[in-house]
C-alpha cells in the first residue's frame, strides 16, 4: 500500500516533530510512507474565515499532490475534516468537472492518523511505551467533526505504562476556533481559562490531542500560567518508546 503523509501547513511550520512521529509509528509497523513535496495546505483557514474562492487553488493542489496514493494520512482531525466535508463542496461550487471527479475520487482515501491505524491498518498496539500520566482532549473536530469516538483512547490504552486519566468537561471547546481566538480574543480567553483549570484538575503530566492547533492554544495558556503540564500530539506519544527494551 502506498501511503502518503499530509503534514498540514501548520504542523509543517510549527510542529514538525508531529510529522516525524507519524513517520516513526508507521515505519515501526512496517509501512513505507512518502511525503509528496507539492503539498501545502488544505485551505481550512480560508474556507472557515469566508474566503472560499481563495481556497480553490489549494483544493486543486491537494487533489493533484495526492492523486496517486492508496491512502493519505494526516495528524490533524480538523484538516482531515476539511478535506472530507468541504473539498467536495468547494469543488462543486467553484471547480470544473475534472476537479470534482478528482476530489470525489481522492476523499475516501484520506484518513486522520487514528482512523488509519484502527480502521485501515487494524492495529491498536503500536509498540509504544510512555510511563506518564496522560489526559486526552477530544478536540471539537475529532469529537463532533470526524467522530473519532474511542479510537484515540483505544490506542492510548495499549501504550505500555501509560496512565490515562479523565479530563473534566472534556467535550467542551477550548476556545481556539482558528481566527476566533484573534477576532474574539476575550471570549476565547475565558474558554481557555476553564479548559486550563480542567487540565490542572485532571492531574495529568501530559495533555494530548489529535490537533496541534488546539494544543498550541491550550499549551500557550498553560505556559502563561507557568503550569508544568506539557502538551503533546497523540502521534508523539504513540511514537515514544521511553525506557523500553531496545
Amino acid at each position: 500500500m502506498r501511503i502518503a503523509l499530509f503534514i498540514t501547513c501548520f504542523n509543517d511550520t510549527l510542529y514538525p516533530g508531529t510529522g516525524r512521529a507519524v513517520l516513526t509509528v508507521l515505519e515501526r509497523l512496517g509501512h513505507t510512507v512518502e511525503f509528496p513535496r507539492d503539498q501545502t495546505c488544505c485551505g481550512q483557514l480560508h474556507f472557515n474565515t469566508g474566503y472560499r474562492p481563495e481556497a480553490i487553488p489549494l483544493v486543486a493542489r491537494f487533489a493533484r499532490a495526492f492523486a496517486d496514493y492508496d491512502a493519505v494520512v494526516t495528524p490533524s482531525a480538523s484538516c482531515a475534516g476539511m478535506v472530507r466535508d468541504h473539498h467536495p463542496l468547494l469543488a462543486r461550487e467553484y471547480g470544473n468537472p475534472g476537479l470534482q471527479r478528482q476530489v470525489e475520487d481522492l476523499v475516501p482515501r484520506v484518513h486522520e492518523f487514528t482512523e488509519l491505524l484502527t480502521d485501515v491498518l487494524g492495529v491498536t498496539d503500536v509498540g509504544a511505551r510512555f510511563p506518564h500520566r496522560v489526559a486526552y482532549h477530544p478536540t471539537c473536530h475529532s469529537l463532533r467533526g470526524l467522530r473519532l469516538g474511542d479510537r484515540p483512547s483505544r490506542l492510548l490504552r495499549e501504550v505500555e505504562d501509560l496512565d490515562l486519566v479523565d479530563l473534566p468537561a472534556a467535550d467542551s471547546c477550548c476556545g481556539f476556533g482558528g481566527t476566533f481566538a484573534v477576532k474574539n480574543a476575550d471570549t476565547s480567553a475565558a474558554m481557555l481559562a476553564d479548559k486550563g483549570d480542567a487540565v490542572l484538575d485532571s492531574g495529568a503530566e501530559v495533555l494530548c490531542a489529535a490537533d496541534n492547533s488546539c494544543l498550541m492554544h491550550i499549551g500557550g495558556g498553560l505556559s502563561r500560567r507557568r503550569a508544568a503540564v506539557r502538551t503533546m500530539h497523540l502521534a508523539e506519544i504513540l511514537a515514544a518508546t521511553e525506557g523500553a527494551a531496545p
Partner: protein
Amino acid sequence: MSDHRDRGVVWLGAPSFPDAARGALKDTQLRANLRRATATIRDKRLAVASELDDWEQLRDAGAAIKRRTSRHLDRYLVQLEASVTAAGGIVHWAADAAEANRIVTELVLATGEREVVKVKSMATQEIGLNEHLAEAGITAYETDLAELIVQLGDDRPSHILVPAIHRNRTEIRDLFAAEMRHWGRPAPEGLTDEPADLAEAARRHLRSRFLTAKVTVSGANFAVADTGTVVVVESEGNGRMCLTLPETLITVMGLEKVVPTWSDLEVFLQLLPRSSTGERMNPYTSTWTGTTDGDGPRTFHLVLLDNGRTDTLADPVGRQALACIRCSACLNVCPVFERTGGHAYGSVYPGPIGAVLTPQLVGVENAASLPFASTLCGACYDACPVKIDIPEVLVHLRAEVVESGTGGAEAPAMRAAAAVLDSPRLLGAAQKAAALGGRALARHGRIGRLPGPLRGWSDTRDTPVPPAESFRTWWRKNREGER
C-alpha cells in the same frame, strides 16, 4: 422588499459582538448565573432525550417536515389563511416590522382599550411592538414570569426560553420590591428571594391584570395549516389566562411557524419540551381555532410576519435557520453563549441560532460580526432537535460578509496567505522567515506578548517559537539526501 434597517431585530446602536462580549465577560456574577442555569437545563435535556429510543428518528422527522413545509411555504400559508378565516378569525399580512406594528396598533386602538396583556412572543420583540404601542398611548404588560422580570428591569431578554437567565434570585427580589408598584399591584412587604415567594408575588401581581384585560397580544409556536389552529406551548399557565380571558386576541407569528397538519405537530410537541426545558411534556399547550360562540375571545386576529423571512428562504443554505422551533437547546450547549450571555448578540435572537438568523433577517452587512461569534465547535448542531447545521450556515454567512466587503482589514492578508500557501517554494521561504522572526521575539523558548492584531491572542497565551527546520526541510535533508 423593505429596507433591511427597517426590520427591527437588531438593537439600534448595537456594538459588534467582540465589543459587546467584553463587558459581559468581566461580569463574574453574570457568568456564574449563566453557567449554573445552562448546565442544569443541559443535563435535563440529555436525560429526557435519551429516554426515547426513537429520538434520532424524531429529529429526522422534525427536520424533514420543516424542509418540506419551507419548500411549499406559500401554499401552506394560503391554506392557513383560508382555514383561519373559515373558523372566524381575521388574517393580516405584514411585510416588515413597521407594517406589523401599524396593524397591531390600529387593531388595539379600534377596541377603545389602552392596555394589553402579552404572552409568548419573540416576534413582537423582534419588531419592537411594545415601544410602538407606547407611542400610541397603549401600555403592554408582559405576563411570562421571565418577561415580566425583563420588563420591570427595563432590560433586554438574553435567552430565548429564559429571557432573564442573566439574573439571579436576589436580583429578581430587589427588582420586584422596587418596581412592581409602578406596574400595578406592588410586591408584598418583606419579600424573600425564595423561588416560591417570588412566584407568588408575580402571580398576585399578574392576576389583577388578567382579570381586567380586554386585549391580548400573543405569539405562536405553531399554526396548523389545514385546520387553522394556532398553538402556544408554555410552562406557567399565564399564557392560558391571556389566551382565554380577554375579548380580543391578536397573535403575531413569523411566517415559518406554519406546519401542514396535526400529525406534523405531534412530532414537534415531542421535540420541543424535551429540547427546551428538559421536560417530557410542557405543562400547558393551548390551541385555538378561530372563534367559538360563548367561549374565549370574541375576535381573533392573526398577523403573519415576514420581516426578512422570504429573503432568508431564497438562500438554499441559509434557509434552514427558518426551521428553528426556538427551543434554545443550542444556546444552552454553546460555550460562547455560556461566557458572553445573550445581550452580546445584540438581538432578540441570541446564541448560535441568533448568529445565523439575525444576519439573514437584517442583511449580513448590518450584523457582520455575528457569523464569526463561534468557534464552529459543532455542539449546537448536535443539540438541535431539527438538525439545523448551524456551523454550515455560519461559514456560509462568513463568505457573504467577506463578499459584502464589511469584514474589515483582513482581506489583503488572507489573499497574500493564499498565494504563499499555493506555492511550496513561497511556503518554504515563509517558514524560514517565521523561524527567524520567532526566535528574535522569543524568550525561554516561548513568545510572549505581541503587538498589533495579535495582541488579544498574546494577552493570555504564549506562542511557540517556530523551529529552525520545517518538516519539509527535514524530509528533504534526511529522506531525500538534499542539503
